[in-house]
């Protein structure tokens, strides 16, 4: 009921001007313009993915990826999500050609060109919403909390904006100051039509909202569909937990996680409310889908409390202890397992096919818990010169095959270059491009200018912009 009222309010608030595309004044760069390359894969005559035939067969040249009742047929030579082999995805904006991700391997040291686009704003997701082969941005470039698509120009700038969800219009009772509405949005193709769809949660809304994408710049999304939740979710995750080839939704709510299975066509069916003995009344903190036990099925990993990542990307020092539920791969999860380990950012830093966690240290720096099995790390390392609190992202920024860490250190943005063994021997310090304030730093990584190098969109308290990868 509450959800419907909110949706109605939002609809009423959609003024024509808010829905107009408007130009953002952003700097452009002659040297970064590679637009001519764009769209080549998109206009290819044959589709990258197809639904299998009634008998479940894929046409010649296509391979079924995904399991259970929802496999699709992919051209593994060109599919970004299944490049070379099923589930081997290329980083955002990196093309797949001849079954290989076309990421550039830096020959020299990492370097970035900093571009600041605004003094406020938050970023939610990167994706090619209009299908022109250039990454776009879903975010809130202004302080009013409106959610917009910012269309990428192909040079690292975003020239055109389309408002999707206008500002809530909510103001605090004793002043006209707009109430800050936190939100989290995820971009993924939920209905298999090749267009990115939006999955979002928002403060004051007890629902997960789905908007199916059209690929059109004029009307990028259809009418929202709401999946009600018991409380306003603190976090939302899209992942194929049941291994049927379709994305599922997990939303963190008060003392539980709510789980819907993807049913195809962008529809979801409520499967279970996963009660938690530890999750706070405000819902879980950082919530992730990752293969925790190495069985090839994505599991659910979440913090019992703490900063969730809504309105930002995950942060070191976000609080809470790590919990997980192993997926059985059939739409059910095993029991909740609570670890003494602090929640942090999860990735395989050392190629041992076991999760590693970066979390905050008590006194200073970060703690790397490497080679985790269950709740226990085989090695724990402290890195005293890392920040103990700040937004963070893991990505192979220099294309050497090893995960690097980009982290907001308040006074600077630090890039710690991974050696693939859990060590970070080199660091690049980028002077803070904007003023910062908590929450410090969200990072979204993708190739914005189609040069094969991963760029970084940052949003921090005092503004947002792009770090364009200029490595040689």
């Amino acid at each position: 009921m509450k959800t419907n009222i909110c949706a109605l309010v939002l609809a009423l608030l959609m003024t024509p001007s808010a829905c107009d595309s408007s130009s953002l004044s952003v700097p452009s760069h002659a040297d970064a313009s590679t637009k001519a390359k764009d769209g080549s894969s998109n206009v290819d005559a044959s589709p990258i993915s197809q639904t299998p035939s009634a008998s479940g067969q894929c046409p010649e040249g296509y391979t079924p990826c995904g399991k259970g009742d929802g496999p699709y047929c992919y051209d593994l030579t060109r599919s970004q999500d299944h490049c070379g082999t099923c589930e081997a995805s290329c980083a955002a904006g990196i093309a797949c050609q001849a079954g290989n991700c076309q990421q550039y391997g830096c020959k020299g040291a990492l370097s970035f060109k900093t571009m600041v686009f605004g003094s406020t704003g938050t970023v939610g997701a990167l994706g090619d919403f209009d299908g022109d082969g250039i990454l776009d941005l879903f975010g809130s470039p202004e302080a009013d909390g409106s959610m917009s698509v910012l269309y990428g120009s192909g040079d690292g700038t975003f020239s055109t904006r389309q408002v999707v969800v206008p500002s809530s219009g909510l103001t605090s009772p004793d002043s006209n100051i707009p109430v800050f509405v936190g939100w989290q949005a995820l971009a993924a193709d939920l209905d298999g039509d090749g267009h990115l769809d939006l999955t979002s949660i928002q403060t004051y809304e007890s629902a997960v909202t789905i908007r199916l994408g059209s690929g059109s710049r004029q009307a990028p999304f259809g009418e929202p569909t709401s999946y009600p939740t018991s409380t306003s979710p603190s976090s939302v995750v899209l992942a194929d937990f049941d291994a049927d080839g379709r994305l599922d939704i997990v939303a963190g709510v008060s003392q539980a996680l709510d789980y819907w299975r993807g049913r195809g066509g962008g529809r979801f069916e409520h499967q279970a409310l996963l009660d938690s003995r530890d999750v706070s009344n405000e819902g879980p903190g950082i919530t992730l889908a990752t293969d925790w036990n190495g069985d090839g099925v994505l599991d659910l990993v979440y913090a019992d409390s703490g900063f969730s990542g809504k309105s930002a990307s995950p942060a070191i020092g976000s609080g809470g202890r790590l919990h997980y539920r192993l997926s059985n791969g059939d739409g059910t999860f095993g029991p909740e397992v609570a670890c003494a380990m602090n929640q942090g950012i999860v990735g395989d830093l050392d190629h041992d096919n076991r999760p590693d966690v970066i979390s905050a240290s008590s006194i200073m720096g970060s703690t790397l818990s490497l080679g985790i099995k269950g709740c226990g790390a085989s090695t724990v390392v402290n890195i005293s010169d890392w920040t103990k609190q700040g937004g963070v992202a893991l990505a192979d920024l220099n294309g050497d095959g090893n995960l690097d860490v980009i982290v907001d250190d308040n006074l600077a943005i630090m890039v710690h270059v991974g050696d693939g063994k859990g060590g970070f021997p080199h660091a690049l310090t980028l002077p803070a491009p904007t003023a910062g304030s908590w929450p410090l730093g969200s990072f979204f990584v993708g190739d914005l200018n189609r040069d094969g190098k991963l760029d970084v969109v940052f949003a921090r308290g005092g503004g947002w912009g792009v770090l364009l990868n200029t490595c040689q």
Partner: protein
Amino acid sequence: MRAQHSFTTEFLIGLMVLGLGCGGNMTTGTAKKAVNNKPAEDGSCPSGQTLCGVGTFAICADLQSNPSHCGTCDRACSPGIVCQAGVCQQTACTSAEIPLSGQPTTGTSTTGLVPNNMPYTAATQILADVNGDGRLDRIEWLIPFCQDCGTSLSTFRVSLGRPGGTFATPDAYNASAAIGSVFATDANGDGLADLYVVSSTDVDAQNSRYHVELWLGQNDGKLKRSDTGGNSAEASVGQSNTAIGDLSGDGWPDLVMAAPFSDFDSPPKINVYLSDSTGGLHLSQTFIAWSGRTVIADWNGDGSPDLALLGDGMEILYNRGDGTFEQPLDCGVSVGGKPMAERDLVVDDFNRDGWMDIAAEDSRNRVTVMLGLGGCAFSPLSAYDIHGSNVGFLLDADMNGDGILDLVSVSSISDVSGLPNIGVTATTDQLLSVLIGNPDGTFHLQDTVISLGPNWISNVTIGEVTGDQRPDIIVSSSDGKSGQSSTWENVCQ
């Protein structure tokens, strides 16, 4: 506040078990310690004794009679339980439950207690055998609650244990300043428990001078202040996280405490003081670290005691084998909700797998158990409901004699509605819960809940004091006017 006090108790129980038995066969000597429980140069032990521990920490122990190494090395009997013929002589309970017999407090309700009244009435205590008669004696001192607590807080009292579970009229002793904590260990190797009494005087607004005095136990039950074996050190005000234990393997207890406060921009530090050949303490190392509670235990299984600093989370300082330590390693673990230092918790090897475990109150009025896997690694957590809420004390001991450690918690049923927030909890009852340890490392809550009465509990200690070879629970409480100590006798059959 409660957490600090309960820590002292918890820690001491650990020390008593470690310290008393280990030094069982030393001879007296203060100027130079004649350690005769150390193995010969070739690593051999005298006939009838077994080598326990490794390296400089190795000792020779008579596994037939040593309550810290009873039957096998490091197999400790519950406090006060005799080791005979290599078997802890604890009476094994056949009943599923562990009944406790005692008298609840009947004083006035603690509603509206003024904290400043408490120091003069609320005692904390440890149990140790200072006269070598095989019975645990009670050492009590008052809790330094306030800044201007007065000189009476320098007094500690020793009540000798008597047959039948009573204690003799206490003898009073005066330390040089207000007492912060008392540790029992056999410092001079005569088989009797000695006391390290840590007291402090203010240096300035930020720092105190901590005096570490050694009081030697004697056969007549009178303590004798030693000229050696102690020292004084300066540290920041209000640091009760002192830990004492033999870190270097020389037999003399060493000391870990917070470093002096210098300025607000400086990170917190802890100092490690090592003993010399006379037991005098000298600063050995300083580390940037914060500890609300420091636990001395072997966390990596190399046989040398490491330091676990419980602050926001947990940091381990690994012993290099000689009493010097590696830089602190932050384990990246926590008990959730609050810093570890603010949790009531107990550290011990509950499931006797050789790795230290932690049990702690959690944010949901339960006891969460972290079973150690060595180093920073822990098994998945288990959480257990207890009776009541607001855990105030958490202790461990093998209460039923099955060889597996059980957990004892004291919690309260409280109603703080309508009271100003002055740090005092209006309490309607204090409840004692027993979580009985299962062989697989899990626990189950005993149905029987014991009401300790309405009074404010200042200390809970476990030890066999009634002579029936079952560990009892000694509770100190206060009604705001006078302190009481009651023994809850373990009457399991």
